[in-house]
């Protein structure tokens, strides 16, 4: 059992090692990378199956019993996040075959990409806070490298802002972890759930919670800590942006969800108020930024921020339905967001620019791509019956149940503005004629490249459609995962291997 839970990060690390010596040969290197991602997807499928059939699984590395050793835990939330990372990893690695130029492959693009996946998967499966820190760092250093790989002027400029702010978040996270240890004497998350409830110092616990909100908030890009994101996400090649957009910020949200459901007692009013406020402001500022911009990728980058607001909202409302909404929203958002960035890359390939005023005519040149964009974009805006509709519906229902009408108002305004900026892209890039009249058709690009660009996009669009047309099982799964989060006795039992009479601090 233990080796299986270690595989989600072992497979990418081994793949990274294998691609490094092959980096001089673009095709071989790409093939190894895609193979590694396929393997990862298989592993995450198995883990999801095991968790679904046998409940929460935990593994103690080196047979050191928790809370003293390193623990890996997979519950429903971890399992679904791992599976989504596997899917995104595979799609992006296939897309990268045509999008990433030879000199970037030679600099080790695929190795860093795999290390990034290892960091993401490691963060999802780890069971203690210090290892979470370590996996965040693995992820961070790989993302630094991917962001500036190739060394264009714009990449260096965006990279500096990204590095500067993320280093601050690293320090905050380290400090808050150290303070947690000082208060409780343990860093194992299951043990923390038990120990932190006995700490008789509500001020210190609240302060700690706020420190964690700041640390993970920078990673997740919540208001007002998001400024590194729109400054840097449009700088690297679009493949890199796609995987960043899909996974990196969501790891921050995952960490927030994990800490605020498992570790901190929910009687703490103060942090939840902060989370609610920032969630609403994040939703609004993000979408306003998107409405103000006229560059394909910058609009999408601001949308990431706005949607992080929805995810944090689900956590802040703190009801089973709201958490289920947040989980379903995360699944939907990772898929749709990655897809939109991949489509924007292909749009650039066909029209020659990301500036909306300088491109156009995509609908006439390649209707197929337009259909895929339509699915992803209008799903993000929350159009029924696409997946975003159900995600938003869950969150709206949860806030209506709490009589939080102004939350509903903000969510609806955000939805309307999202629709506005998506139709802006739709009108400018797809419907309008190309100003210089050289919009290529998909048929004009080489067949192999066409497949490498279209297959991942088609797969992600298909997932969006399935999530939208048959949401039942996925919503059920999210509800089950939310139930586990709010009543973590299974988690604690699996990790600490003891029959806890669950008194709970929730």
């Amino acid at each position, binding site marked *: 059992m233990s080796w299986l839970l270690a595989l989600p990060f072992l497979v990418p690390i081994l793949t990274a090692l294998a691609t490094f010596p092959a980096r001089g040969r673009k095709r071989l290197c790409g093939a190894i990378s895609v193979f590694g991602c396929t393997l990862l997807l298989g592993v995450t499928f198995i883990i999801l199956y095991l968790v679904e059939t046998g409940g929460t699984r935990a593994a103690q590395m080196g047979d050191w019993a928790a809370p003293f050793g390193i623990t890996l835990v997979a519950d429903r939330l971890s399992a679904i996040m791992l599976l989504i990372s596997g899917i995104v990893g595979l799609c992006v690695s296939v897309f990268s075959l045509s999008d990433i130029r030879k000199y970037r492959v030679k600099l080790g693009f695929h190795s860093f990409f795999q290390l990034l996946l290892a960091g993401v998967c490691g963060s999802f499966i780890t069971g203690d806070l210090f290892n979470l820190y370590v996996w965040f760092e693995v992820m961070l250093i790989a993302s630094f490298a991917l962001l500036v790989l190739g060394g264009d002027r714009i990449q*260096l400029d965006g990279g500096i802002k990204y590095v500067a702010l993320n280093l601050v978040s690293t320090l905050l996270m380290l400090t808050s972890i150290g303070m947690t240890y000082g208060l409780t004497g343990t860093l194992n998350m299951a043990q923390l759930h038990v120990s932190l409830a006995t700490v008789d110092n509500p001020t210190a616990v609240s302060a700690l919670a706020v420190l964690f909100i700041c640390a993970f908030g920078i990673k997740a890009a919540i208001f007002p800590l998001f400024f590194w994101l729109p400054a840097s996400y449009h700088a690297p090649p679009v493949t890199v942006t796609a995987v960043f957009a899909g996974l990196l910020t969501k790891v921050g949200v995952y960490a927030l969800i994990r800490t605020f459901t498992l570790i901190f007692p929910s009687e703490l009013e103060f942090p939840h108020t902060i989370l609610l406020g920032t969630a609403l402001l994040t939703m609004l500022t993000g979408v306003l930024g998107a409405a103000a911009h006229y560059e394909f990728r910058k609009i999408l980058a601001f949308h990431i921020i706005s949607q992080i607001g929805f995810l944090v909202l689900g956590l802040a409302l703190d009801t089973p339905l709201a958490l289920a909404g947040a989980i379903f929203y995360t699944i939907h958002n990772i898929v749709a967001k990655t897809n939109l960035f991949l489509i924007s890359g292909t749009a650039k390939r066909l029209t020659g620019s990301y500036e909306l005023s300088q491109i156009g005519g995509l609908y006439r040149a390649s209707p197929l791509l337009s259909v895929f964009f339509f699915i992803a974009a209008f799903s993000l805006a929350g159009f029924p019956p696409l997946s975003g509709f159900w995600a938003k519906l869950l969150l709206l229902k949860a806030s209506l149940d709490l009589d939080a009408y102004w939350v509903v108002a903000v969510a609806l305004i955000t939805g309307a503005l999202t629709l506005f900026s998506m139709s802006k892209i739709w009108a400018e890039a797809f419907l309008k004629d190309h100003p210089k009249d050289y919009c290529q058709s998909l048929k004009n690009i080489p067949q192999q490249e066409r497949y490498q660009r279209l297959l991942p996009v088609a797969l992600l669009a298909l997932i969006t459609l399935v999530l939208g047309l048959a949401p039942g099982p996925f919503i059920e799964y999210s509800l089950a995962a939310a139930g586990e989060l709010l009543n973590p006795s299974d988690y604690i039992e699996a990790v600490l291997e003891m029959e806890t009479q669950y008194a709970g601090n929730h």
Partner: protein
Amino acid sequence: MEGPLALVVGILIATGVYLMLARNLLHYLFGLILISNAANLAIFVAGRVTRAAPPLIPKGMEVAPGPISNPLPQALILTAIVIGFGLLAFALALIAQAYKVLGTLDVDSMRIAEPVLPKRDKSP
């Protein structure tokens, strides 16, 4: 001992923040280094400071006879120092490369990724 150590942490953070508020990237990096040391020191203090009690267990015994200092914060700090060195080395190399390519270390004049947009006329 905790008092003076806490004071040192505070001074390090204050100096670090002061340096990070400068427009120059190198000042920012030095501020970051100071704060990262402050964070390590804070963890060290949070793990309780004890005098002259190394975490050693005499031969033939299962547990230590008296109170001993906690080795775990030190292990945490060691890991954090190694990771911190890696990140700071990367940041320094990035700043050096940025200076070479962009020709400046002044953050306010780095506007390539987010250019100041010219006023957009109404017609798209």
